[in-house]
């Protein structure tokens, strides 16, 4: 009696293995393109039909293969890319496992045409379900052309699991797009059901990014560049208001390979911190270069995941580079009026200013010229675990601009509009500040700073205020008591659910003590539901939001000047802790254009 256990037939084994490598048309496309690129192609043509379910064709002008290699290529674990174990430690090519073609061949009908430069006649190999059906000489162009037909024709289960036409087509397009971004020096052509989707000439990285994202969007990007011995990074990140509702516009390339890495994505996200509105994700295209010996791509056949030898260092590196890049760019949104033809006044927010050299300091910001302030940019500040808080240097007070304008009350052109916004003239046009969020930003940073010092100033109350709390709020107050005290509250728990307010932060508006505490707790709870935030940060945000002057509060000229002075002392005056813009500029050119003065 024979044993129950036997070695699987090779075609069956291949079918099983194929499941890992080829999950959908897009993965087959990825494998084929990687082969083309490893073969040194200068141009790649990709054609799909029926979202790749019926036909996938990848044509390159790479080095091609000899007849012998061409048939060999379909064998499992056949590769030209590595040969000795040491090579695995130092992988320079995209592929190396020797599985792709074998796997694709196991689940489809493949036709491969190839010719090397020094041969006159090429080779045609036809494979169907892991069997070589035909291998003949044929006339063809230099390079390799692989046509995959009827993917998963012999694995109906897998075929049934394919998603809708649109989803699969999008996946395929994403693959080609990523490859095109990673290899700007290759020209790309991509056709889906006879329609040309991409047609990209070889260009620089910048050029390619611009081709992919479009000219308009490209203006919203900020370049990133940094090199160290261990790692180098370059690419583009989106200005905060260019953020998306999902993570699709995030491209991370490691040594030319598109990868997904939660840690690095998180580092970028973290760097944006309060610049983003809740629930949105930054746009980025980043290329990392790391010595291949420091990484391990051999985690999964699809090679989307990579293990780093020192992931936490890389995390900090990315975090600080992105933070610094953001800090050095003019993030003031300026208003660009609608195009003439649309006629409507639906002014669109846009982060203005050109993208200057990433290493430049923010000297070019007009606002800085008006609000002359010293804002030293400290190296390494960004690595502070508690947000982009820079120890503030004393700055100069605003010097009123010389009287080219017929100014308001005391020589500064500044007005309050609808008790809500502050309007001010600046050198290049006008600036509008939202008074509530501006104050919020100031209080937020002050709160953060006061957590670090001990015991800030606290205005003692003549009539201590008794506040009745719900048991939940009461417990929360007890938990947060030390933090609340460092904010300037003096609270005495009194009985079970009662707390007596004896002192309040010195800059809280008089008379709203009880309300502020209650609102602060509500806001704190609210924030708690979103994301995992640091308790102190949450408290600072809640406090800032609730203690800040509100839209509708009337401000004197002195108060407005004070507010703006202090706003520009903060580390990030353009965005409030919740990510809303604080300052909007309208340039003179824009106004001129509106009034037909061009």
């Amino acid at each position, binding site marked *: 009696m024979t044993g129950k256990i036997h070695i699987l037939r090779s075609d069956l084994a291949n079918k099983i293995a194929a499941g890992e490598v080829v999950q959908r048309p897009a993965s087959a496309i990825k494998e084929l393109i990687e082969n083309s690129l490893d073969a040194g192609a200068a141009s790649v043509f990709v054609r799909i039909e029926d979202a790749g379910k019926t036909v996938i064709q990848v044509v390159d002008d790479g080095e091609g293969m000899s007849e012998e290699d061409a048939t060999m290529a379909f064998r499992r674990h056949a590769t030209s890319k590595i040969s000795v174990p040491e090579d695995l430690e130092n992988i320079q090519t995209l592929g190396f496992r020797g599985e792709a073609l074998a796997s694709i061949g196991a689940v489809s009908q493949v036709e491969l045409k190839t010719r090397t430069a020094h041969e006159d006649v090429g080779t045609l190999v036809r494979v169907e379900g892991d069997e070589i059906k035909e291998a003949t000489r044929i006339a063809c162009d230099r390079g390799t052309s692989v046509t995959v037909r009827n993917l998963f024709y012999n694995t109906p289960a897998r075929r049934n699991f394919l998603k809708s036409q649109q989803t699969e087509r999008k996946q395929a397009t994403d693959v080609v797009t990523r490859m095109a971004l990673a290899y700007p020096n290759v020209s790309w052509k991509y056709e889906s059901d006879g329609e040309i989707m991409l047609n990209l000439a070889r260009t620089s990285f910048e050029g390619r990014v611009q081709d992919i994202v479009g000219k308009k969007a490209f203006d919203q990007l900020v370049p990133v560049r940094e090199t160290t011995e261990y790692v180098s990074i370059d690419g583009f990140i989106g200005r905060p208001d260019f953020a998306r509702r999902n993570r699709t516009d995030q491209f991370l390339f490691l040594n030319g390979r598109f990868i997904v890495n939660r840690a690095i994505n998180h580092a970028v996200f973290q760097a944006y911190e309060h610049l983003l509105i809740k629930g949105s994700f930054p746009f980025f295209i980043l290329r990392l270069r790391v010595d291949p010996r420091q990484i391990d791509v051999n985690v999964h056949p699809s090679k989307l995941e990579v293990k780093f030898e020192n992931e936490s260092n890389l995390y900090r590196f990315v975090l600080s580079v992105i933070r610094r890049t953001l800090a050095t760019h003019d993030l003031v949104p300026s208003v660009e009026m609608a195009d003439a033809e649309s006629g409507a006044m639906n002014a669109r927010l846009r982060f203005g200013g050109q993208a200057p050299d990433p290493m430049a300091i923010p000297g070019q910001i007009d606002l800085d010229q008006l609000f002359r302030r010293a804002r030293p940019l400290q190296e390494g500040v960004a690595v502070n675990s508690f947000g982009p808080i820079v120890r503030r240097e004393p700055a100069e007070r605003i010097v009123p601009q010389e009287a080219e304008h017929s100014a308001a009350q005391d020589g500064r052109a500044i007005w309050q509009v609808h008790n809500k916004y502050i309007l001010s003239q600046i050198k290049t046009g006008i600036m509008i500040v939202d008074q509530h969020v501006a104050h919020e930003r100031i209080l937020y940073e002050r709160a953060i700073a006061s957590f670090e010092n001990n015991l800030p100033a606290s*205005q003692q109350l003549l009539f201590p205020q008794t506040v009745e709390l719900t048991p939940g709020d009461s417990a929360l107050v007890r938990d947060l008591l030390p933090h609340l005290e460092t904010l300037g509250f003096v609270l005495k728990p009194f009985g079970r659910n009662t707390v007596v307010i004896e002192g309040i932060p010195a800059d809280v508006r008089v*008379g709203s003590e009880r309300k502020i505490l209650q609102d602060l707790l509500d806001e704190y709870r609210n924030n708690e539901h979103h994301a995992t935030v640091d308790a102190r940060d949450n408290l600072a945000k809640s406090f800032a939001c609730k203690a800040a002057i509100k839209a509708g509060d009337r401000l004197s000229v002195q108060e407005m000047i004070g507010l703006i002075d202090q706003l520009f002392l903060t580390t990030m005056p353009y965005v409030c802790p919740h990510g809303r813009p604080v300052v909007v500029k309208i340039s003179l050119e824009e106004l001129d254009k509106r009034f037909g003065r061009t």
Partner: protein
Amino acid sequence: MKFTVASTEIQRVLSKIIGVVPAKSTLPILENILFELKKNTLRLMATDLEVSMAATVEVKGTEDGSITIPAKRLMETIRALSDVNIVFTADLASNKVKMMTENGEYTLLGESGEEFPTIPQFKGEDRIVLDGSILRKIIGRTNFSVSTDELRPAMTGVLFQAQPQGLRAVATDGHRLVRFTVKGIKQSQLRKDIIIPAKALNLALRTAEEAESTILVDATHVQFLFGTTTLTSRLIEEHYPNYESVIPLDNTKIVSVNRETLLASVRRVALYSSTTTHQIRFSIKGNEMRIAAEDLDFGGEARENVACKYNGEEIEIGFNSLYVIDMLSHMDADEVSFKLSTPVRAAIMTPAAQKENEDLLMLVMPVRLNV
């Protein structure tokens, strides 16, 4: 309605009551002034529904009637006229008001006098009679420290109380408090505590003349009678906080210092305090008081020394400089005494020597300093 009046006369009366007219109102007729003519007596009235003022003036009347006239334009016109006689003619059917001078004619569109809100008939139950100068002093000493917080309406007015020691007025905004008691009021019959809104008191301060003034009080309103002008205000019907309980009795550290020297010094040093907290610091040791401020945002700091009389142990205490300046400038003593206990408990300020028939106490809560 028709009458003749000298422009200076009507301007004098108008300027008394114009302060009541609200700049913007949901009820547009409140931006008008009511003119009522009976024989030779013209009565002008303005109201914002909380506070109303009326004044009478003798004119040469021809035809009785009543109409309301837009206050702002009327006042500006009359102010711009030189000393001339004006003939007012109101057509009560079209509500057109014509003002004629020797060589000018101005027409305004008014509204019918009947639409003007009626002021409740006032029957004073309690009565206080005092000199205008004393009333002005009471208001001047207290009104600056009322609260503007509408969440605590009781504190938006000044409390008046009859006390065995005399008539007492108290104002507080929760951070500072003033208690002022005056003896020797001519007639002081006040059977309950009343809270008079700050706006009414400001108007009273402007209107009160040296001559005798009478204050009438009923259940819901107060009325000031100043000669031919009356000011009526609704009372704030709230419980005033128990202010007595927060005035400490055991403040034993007593410092006395020249008021004007200190005020000038605090004003200068306060220029260097933070624009949001206005915090200044008093360090008192021996016969020297050191006042210091620093502005962390802009990196300024200032220090001054003021001579004082003190023999307690060294103390350091912080204040909001605005409060200190307010209080010192609303006193008229040469020497002021500070009574302190600890840096987080109420500080008391009084004139070193109380004036005859007066008792003034000011209290300010300190700012806990960051150590």
